[in-house]
């Protein structure tokens, strides 16, 4: 073996080692949520083409829907989204409002909603939709403890997602987590607006997202805020209303008075 080929082999081995090494560096093609802490824990963001689960208590439906809509918005920015839900989920938690979706910065034009009669047909529809590679993501919303959504069912969804590259998001309201093949599992509840009195304005949607399972890393818990205009999550801001950016060359005196003005 001559020197040049040895050198090539060595460099290739090096790059393979770098790919395989469990490093904290960002993984390729991960989708960043925008929340720095969570992104660091997830090594760059959510993995596409796998299954992610979001759980919430029965009265936290609003916050959980917002969170999963945010995830779907991050994952499939410009591609169609299929949202599979059960018939009675409208009555329990209300129907998905298109105006509300638009207010979150997502595009109602890209949404196809499927109302399934029961869990079985919902699962089958979701698996079908996951096989269609023109979609960005598929959301499956299941209300209550569903016996059918076991390890086998989640394995099927994961395989379908891997084959087509479409991400599966499962929203479980009023359910307790059971073993599954999900890449990540979140428990979501609503979070307070930043402190203030009753009349002070409320800010962007906020959720307390707890990462209870992460196949390839540690878990954590964060308060996340959804930035409707940028269509991404972020750290919670201290002020409910957007604050004018500080000019780069601001006189010292003006900076000292800035906080005073905001509090008034």
């Amino acid at each position, binding site marked *: 073996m001559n020197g040049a080929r040895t050198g090539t082999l060595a460099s290739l081995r090096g790059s393979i080692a770098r790919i395989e090494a469990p490093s904290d560096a960002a993984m390729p093609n991960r989708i960043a949520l925008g929340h720095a802490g969570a992104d660091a824990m997830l090594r760059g963001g959510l993995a596409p083409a796998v299954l992610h689960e979001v759980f919430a208590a029965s009265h936290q439906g609003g916050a959980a829907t917002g969170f999963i809509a945010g995830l779907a918005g991050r994952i499939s920015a410009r591609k169609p989204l299929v949202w599979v839900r059960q018939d009675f989920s409208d009555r329990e938690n209300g129907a998905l409002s298109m105006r509300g979706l638009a207010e979150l910065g997502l595009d109602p034009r890209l949404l196809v909603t499927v109302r399934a009669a029961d869990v079985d047909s919902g699962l089958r529809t979701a698996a079908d939709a996951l096989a269609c590679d023109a979609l960005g993501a598929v959301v499956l919303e299941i209300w209550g403890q569903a016996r059918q959504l076991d390890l086998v069912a989640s394995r099927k969804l994961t395989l379908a997602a891997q084959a087509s590259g479409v991400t599966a998001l499962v929203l479980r309201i009023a359910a307790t987590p059971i073993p599954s093949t999900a890449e990540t599992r979140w428990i979501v509840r609503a979070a307070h607006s930043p402190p203030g009195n009753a009349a002070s304005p409320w800010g962007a*949607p906020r959720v307390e997202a707890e990462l209870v399972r992460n196949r390839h890393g540690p878990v954590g818990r964060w308060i996340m805020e959804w930035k409707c205009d940028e269509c991404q999550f972020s750290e919670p801001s201290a002020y409910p209303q957007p604050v004018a950016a500080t000019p780069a060359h601001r006189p010292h005196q003006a900076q000292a008075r800035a906080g005073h003005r905001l509090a008034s």
Partner: protein
Amino acid sequence: MVAKDHNAILLHAVDEAAVRAGLSIGLPLANARAICPELTVYDADPAADLKTLNDIADWCDRFTPLVALDAPYGLFLDITGCAHLFGGERALLQIVTNALSRRGFAVSAAIAGTSIAARTLTRHVSGKIVVDGTEAQAVGPLPVSALGADSAVTTGLRRAGLKTIGDVAARAPHEISARFGAAFTALLSHALGQGDAPISPRKPLPDYIVEKRFPEPIATDTVIALTLSSLAKMLVAAMDKQGKGARQLEASFFRTDGAVRAIMVETGRPVTRPEMIDRLFRERLDALNDPLDPGFGFDLIRLAAGRTEIVVQQQRDLDTTVHDNDEISALIDRIAARIGGKRVVVHLPLESHIPERAALALPAQHHLAAASAAAWPERVTGEPPLRPLRLFERPEPIKVPFASVPDGPPHQFTWRRALHAVVRVEGPERIAMEWWKQDGAALTRDYFRVEDAEGQRFWIFRDGLYENELRDEEGKSVPANWYVHGLFA
């Protein structure tokens, strides 16, 4: 068989033995009993008769797609161009008559150039085939009652001494019209083979039909699936010649015992690939509530394209959006074939400021293109969401103990048996109902966006304004009703 007509119980149908005993249709039951005391009587059931006639018509679909009902006892089959498939007109007539007699029906059939002529012949004798142009000779000797005109007309003709159709035809048409009306003249000329009344087939004629007959009935799923896919290939080949694609497909399964099952599939855009048709039918057959029952087997399977459209060929390889749109409409078709087209929806904006009427959900198969081009209201940059993400179809009532000021927001409320303390309020946003559409029924709503102690955000409203709407007849104020209408993220 008896039926009640104008408070009298009359004979509705009689069998041969009764005819021999001297009974006839239309005789009162009391008279009939006097003639023949041992008469067995059943109630007539016209609905069941019609259903039986429809079932027979279904069975007749195997001979021609143009089958029309001639209630209460007749069927018209337009066999133009079909007879040679069954070995000629006589053979076809034999097949139909034999098959129906075997099942216990009394059959009288005839073939003629016009439907009325054929019907007139069946009233008199069965199995007659009239060559084109000789209808007048064939129906001439028959009695006028065979025409099937009103009983008043028939009696009138008999009284005038015109006993046979030939007698009536010999008179000048204007004499007959003046006496019995133009409708009867038209009927007469149709019976004589001059001009034809169009029959009204039960089903619209499909654009394309392919079918497969089996000498031995088939019953296994694999053979049925194979047959369907080979029929799909034939159908696509036929449509492809004219550049068409199917929007609506129907597979009919003809069972040996005469039952017919038709299964329909609709698609969002014209289908041009046999494997797609095959897959749609497989989804549909899997999802049937009452599965396809082969019984003793099917002897004919037919695939018809009910509605077709011209396919615009698009450049597929380079334009990825065309490919993606195709994929998505194919997916929607598949899901719709299994769970129903109304369950797969896209959303279109409506011009209404009333929250529950601001969007419309329509079947995705037909409105996908409209939905992807819809113009939704722009959100206000920098504002938190003004509308909830989840909206209840019917606002849910909540209990509000008191409000500090009459028009103000509540301090706490009870929703679904849980007490929520309000810590943050935005509002009110006043939304007046569409008073120009309905008169005074709906009250003006004051909406508040509220956040409770846990951080959950609700969209609640008070139904009615204190100063002028929430008053009873005497002008006293009544307590307002509060509702939660949505949940914010």
